[in-house]
């Protein structure tokens, strides 16, 4: 099992057949690329549930927030139909997640083609609830998180959430 994950809100990627203009715009925005995004659009290449948990932890520790995380699953072959997947060491706060990081270093037009394809397929993002995010964080060794504000936040969160 190998696939890509991209952080993308379920309100845009709801899997519903009816694609309103607002939902299409939100879906396009979730793959939006600005000049400041010099590397491309971030994705993570995962090979199983342990990797998915690392990605969830990486996003949570980077934004330092125990909240919902929505992830969109992309199959390797459906992505490579539109362009290549480039290696790019991640800069998340969770060190073991960084080797999973990849980028779609594509033009906005090419990214829009992928989005349209996924909307036709009625792709739905998977939601990781705050409870699920907490469970992932409680299992994460602090030493897996870079020293500094992210590790401090993780330790504090683990102490708070582990209290009976």
């Amino acid at each position, binding site marked *: 099992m190998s696939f890509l994950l991209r952080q993308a809100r379920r309100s845009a990627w709801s899997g519903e057949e009816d694609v309103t203009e607002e939902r299409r715009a939100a879906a396009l925005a979730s793959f939006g690329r600005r000049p400041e*995004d*010099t*590397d491309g659009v971030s994705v993570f290449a995962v090979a199983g549930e342990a990797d998915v948990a690392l990605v969830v932890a990486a996003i949570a520790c980077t934004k330092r927030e125990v*909240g919902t995380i929505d992830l969109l699953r992309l199959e390797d072959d459906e992505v490579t139909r539109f362009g290549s997947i480039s290696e790019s*060491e991640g800069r998340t706060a969770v060190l073991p997640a960084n080797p999973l990081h990849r980028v779609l270093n594509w033009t906005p037009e090419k990214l829009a083609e992928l989005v349209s394809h996924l909307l036709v397929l009625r792709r739905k993002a998977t939601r990781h*609830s705050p*409870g699920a995010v907490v469970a992932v964080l409680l299992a994460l060794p602090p030493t897996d998180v870079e020293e500094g504000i992210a590790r401090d936040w993780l330790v504090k969160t683990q102490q708070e959430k582990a209290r009976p």
Partner: protein
Amino acid sequence: MTASAECSPLTTAQSTTSQPQRPLQPPSPLTTGYQPFGIPRTESECDGMLAAAEWRIREQPALRRDIAADVARFLGASSHLWTTSRRARLERVLISAGPGTLGCVFAIVAASPRDEVVDHAVRVLVAAAAEDEGVTRTLVSLLSGSRGQSILTQAPSVREVMLRALSNSTGTVAGEAKVRVAFVLAKGDPSPAVRDAAVQALSVMGGRDAVAILTGLLGTLRETEENETVLDSIVEGLETLSGR
């Protein structure tokens, strides 16, 4: 976030009469002759830009809003240059720029409502609110339209950022008002993304009443809510709360 509340430019501005009349409006660089930073391509360029922004914020107060509008472009930037520590440094630059920062951050979120941008914008607002509870009051005020301007004139992504910042802010101010605002948006905001964010905010902010609030909301929306994600969020919120 080491700056004390008394030296926070946010607090300083809000405790005087210089509170901005149009806090959501980003500045126009053309009005000041401000020269924007280039997009950094190396680590040293990125550090240099942050150092220059920090210096200019400190030494050129007249340009603070221009600097904030400029560097806010890098919120959630997808680049290997933006490490956790540099992102945190960017947050500090934005917070130290003062009250104009809110409008600059909202402008970027409206233009680029990508998840990483939204997440980073929430982070800035939460950090700002931690230093100055006036930020929380401002967000409540804006979301409730009590400044004479409907919040619906703002992009859905901006309303979402405000809601998430409110639900993550840890201050003690405006507790009931925060819940009231979220409840109104959960019931009636035209954007499903905002209704979804409002439901999630209620799960967090509702405290002991969260189950009752979400149960009431589910009863109200079961027949009228067209977006499955919003209904799912209510059910998932109730499941999470009952599992606590």
